[in-house]
């Protein structure tokens, strides 16, 4: 699976980046490719390019706040979860997403 996603937390200094790490680690262990954009207080980092988005099978938004530029993902299969889900169970999340996608 080719995953792209965004993480964003309230204070925008810690959880945003921890969640990114967790998703990336979990995805790699499960054999997926992944790119995550962070929207912290410092601003957007590792921005997803149109090519990233075009190549993605699924978009995972892990955020406790509203995220910016969602219009990029129009027409994409997209799932939104609270950031705590990624903190607690990144692998299970990705597996559940995969299962849902397989269902069609």
């Amino acid at each position, binding site marked *: 699976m080719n995953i792209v996603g965004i993480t964003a937390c*309230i*204070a925008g200094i*810690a959880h945003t980046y921890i969640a990114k790490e967790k998703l990336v680690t979990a995805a790699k262990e499960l054999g997926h490719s992944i790119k995550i954009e962070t929207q912290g*207080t410092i601003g957007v980092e590792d921005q997803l390019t149109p090519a990233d988005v075009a190549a993605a099978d699924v978009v995972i938004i892990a955020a406790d706040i*509203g995220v910016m530029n969602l219009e990029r993902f129009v027409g994409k299969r997209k*799932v939104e979860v609270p950031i705590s889900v990624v903190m*607690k169970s990144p692998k299970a999340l990705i597996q*559940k997403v995969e299962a849902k996608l397989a269902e069609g």
Partner: protein
Amino acid sequence: MKFRKHMMTGISYMIPIIVAGGLCMALARILGVVMGLTPEQIVAIGSDEGSFLWMINRIGGLAMTLVVPVLSGFIAYSIADRPGIGPGLVLGLVANEVKTGFLGGLVAAFLVGYFILFLKKHMKVPKSMQGLVPILFIPFISTLVVSMAMFLILGKPIAWVMETFTGMLVNMQNGGAKFGLGALIGGMLGFDLGGPMGKTASAFCNALLAEGIYGPSAAKIVSGMTPAIGIAVAVLVGGKKRWSIAERETAKTALPLGFCFITEGVIPFAAADPIRVIVSTMIGSAVAGGLTQVWGVECMVPHGGIFVVPIMTNPFGFLAALTIGSLITFVLFFILKFRKKAESGVSDVEDSTELDSLDLNF
């Protein structure tokens, strides 16, 4: 759940403004002390127009006037996307105008946000005028209607709630309920760790500063510092075995922030385990806040953390309250969250309870 997300978006964008503004105001007063000004002169910084200190203080004051508008603007943004920002900002100014502060800003932002969503969906205009909807009709109609509602209907009751609460705080300050007042302020700050309830309590303390009542400000500052210090120390003392690298890095960030009176560094811990964290921080903050009032600590500054302690009345009382409050939070959290091994990075077992209860919608 959506409600919380919208509110948190507003707060997330509001935080840098409060920090910038509060620190500028605090800096003006600290520089005043360094330059050897008397307390009377320091209080009068704001009217000494054109002076160096006035400028720094004024930057802070101007920033503070933006706090509620940005809160409202970005709550409305979270609800209605881009069209929400403009009207939301204006509604924040209206909330300031009718003296409803944070509470009014919150209410107005939700109203205007959902009103804009409604307009987006249901407004029918001839095709030739379609282009005017986002640029003209939505901003104009939503701003006008909700602002008038604030002026005519909602402003008074919300302002009354705010005034009643402020009045209650003043009465407690003057009466025998000093510990209770400090504990109430502390409990509110310790409860949501920089969230809306804490910000509300802070807003009241700031309002009281303007009235020349300086005690609650000390309670506010101490109780905004103890959570981060107590929790961070508990994690760092707990050591590598019990806490993951990410958690200890978070604690290392939270600790200096705590000394600067920025509570938000604890939020990652609170989000992961709200009950244990909040019980620890609320009790620590409430005791610390109460003690400052009993010991007559006063602080003329709304912000500044450890750096403004020297300009407080009874700075040693403040430090004692800070130590006791942090210790209580530390001990409570250490006991409540006792564990032998770090939960992440050690085993592959994930807690998917929350995930299981979610229905993923694509």
